[in-house]
């Protein structure tokens, strides 16, 4: 119920945004050329970052508010990218999940060569625990996330999918595709799922 409300609110907000991209007079070719020359020293393995994939092209073109047919197509194609834990378990270690939620390390041009694992940086955008006051509000509060869902097993699977690829639940979500974009590993995502869904996690205290 609560997640439905949040989704509804998100849709309402998105619908209220102006459709900038649709009114753009600049051709896609010009934009791609300008982006290419803006980052002339991009390392070879960074070059793919400059061009949006099909999903991001659609989301940008529709100001993150795609019409139903396109939203459905995005949900379908993104669902196909999800890899599930080989052991079938969705809950890892919430303590490691908390550390990942705090860490914003990784993938910045100053993070090479990497000195530690990428973080999830969840607190940048979400409230998670009562203890951490330094949290962002770009995404909804996730306080008591598991408790509000009675710690149901199917919700652990759903939240795994949301972290792995949020576009399956909400096409053109603003959240990064942590699994599909190879930001976090399957085990790291399981640790964050545990942070949200374990009864003994500080999220649910």
């Amino acid at each position, binding site marked *: 119920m609560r997640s439905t409300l949040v989704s509804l609110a998100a849709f309402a*907000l998105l619908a209220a*945004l*102006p459709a*900038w*991209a649709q009114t*753009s*007079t*600049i051709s896609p070719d*010009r*934009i791609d050329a*300008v*982006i290419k*020359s*803006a*980052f*002339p*020293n*991009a*390392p070879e393995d*960074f070059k793919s*970052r*400059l*061009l*949006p994939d099909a999903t*991001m092209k659609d*989301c*940008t073109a529709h*100001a993150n508010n795609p019409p139903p047919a396109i939203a459905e197509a995005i949900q379908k194609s993104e669902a196909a990218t999800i890899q599930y834990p080989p052991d079938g378990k969705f809950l890892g270690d919430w303590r490691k999940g908390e550390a990942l939620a705090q860490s*914003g390390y990784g*993938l*910045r*041009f*100053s993070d090479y060569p990497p000195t530690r694992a990428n973080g999830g940086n969840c*607190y*940048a*955008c979400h409230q998670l625990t009562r203890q951490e*006051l*330094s*949290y*962002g*509000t*770009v995404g909804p509060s996730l306080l008591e996330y598991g408790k509000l869902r009675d710690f149901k097993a199917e919700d652990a699977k759903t939240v795994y999918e949301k972290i792995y690829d949020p576009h399956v639940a909400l096409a053109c979500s*603003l959240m*990064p*595709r942590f699994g599909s*974009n*190879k*930001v976090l590993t399957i085990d790291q995502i399981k640790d964050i799922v545990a942070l949200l869904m374990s009864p003994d996690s500080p999220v649910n205290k």
Partner: protein
Amino acid sequence: MKPRRMLLAAACIALILPFAAPAQDETEKGLEKYRQMLKEDPWSNPGFLDADRGETLWMTPRGPKNVSLEACDLGKGPGRVDGAFAELPRYFADADRVMDVETRVLWCMATLQGFSREQLTTKPHPAGGQPVKEIGAIATFIASKSNGLAFAAPLGPKEKEMAALGEALFVRRSGPFDFACATCHAEEGRRIRLQGLPVLAQPEAARKVVGEWPGYRVSASHVMTMQHRLYDCYWQMRMPELEFGSEASVALVAYLVKQAQGGPISAPGLKR
């Protein structure tokens, strides 16, 4: 989180902790108090030292051609600095490009004084604790000479196209985090951790903040220019290093200034 930002965050939390719930409102109040304290004594802003340094650099004969920048045309005629920043970015026929203040200073230093463009654009921004580079100091001087004026950049066809390009870049999502500028700067009341995010997509919000750049950034102990600010945004977005003076960087400045049109200039500002 960089050590300085952690310190700052810790200081903010220390400020906030004694207050009662609801925590979020109190958090915002605590942060606002901190910002007010920074603004209370504008002459304590160390950014003015860089504006002075920029003025000296502007007037002193330098470079392989040993000339000052007083022949540099910022759009209001050679050497005319007063009010020039308020009318930038603009199209310059001599360079056949729309230029923001930093790109124009780069062009003048390369063309008039004979400095190497390549040297000026390699590591163009200071690391934390280091003073702003020469172009940034000169840009700070130029911007400070439009203080009290409102942004009134010309909006001819070339400038309009540049602002439209900037808008397209502002909403364009890519990179491993699928971020656009609009991801963080299109909705009201949003924060990253405790840092409030200006809604640059809305003119009334843009008018309040765009005129504070270049600004002295307390957490980095140096003046940060608008080009540097955009470079830092792309760093956070997990994109590669934004080229100084690139068309994309100028386009984004043109878009932000168009959004802030009519808003006051108060440079150097004092930032977190």
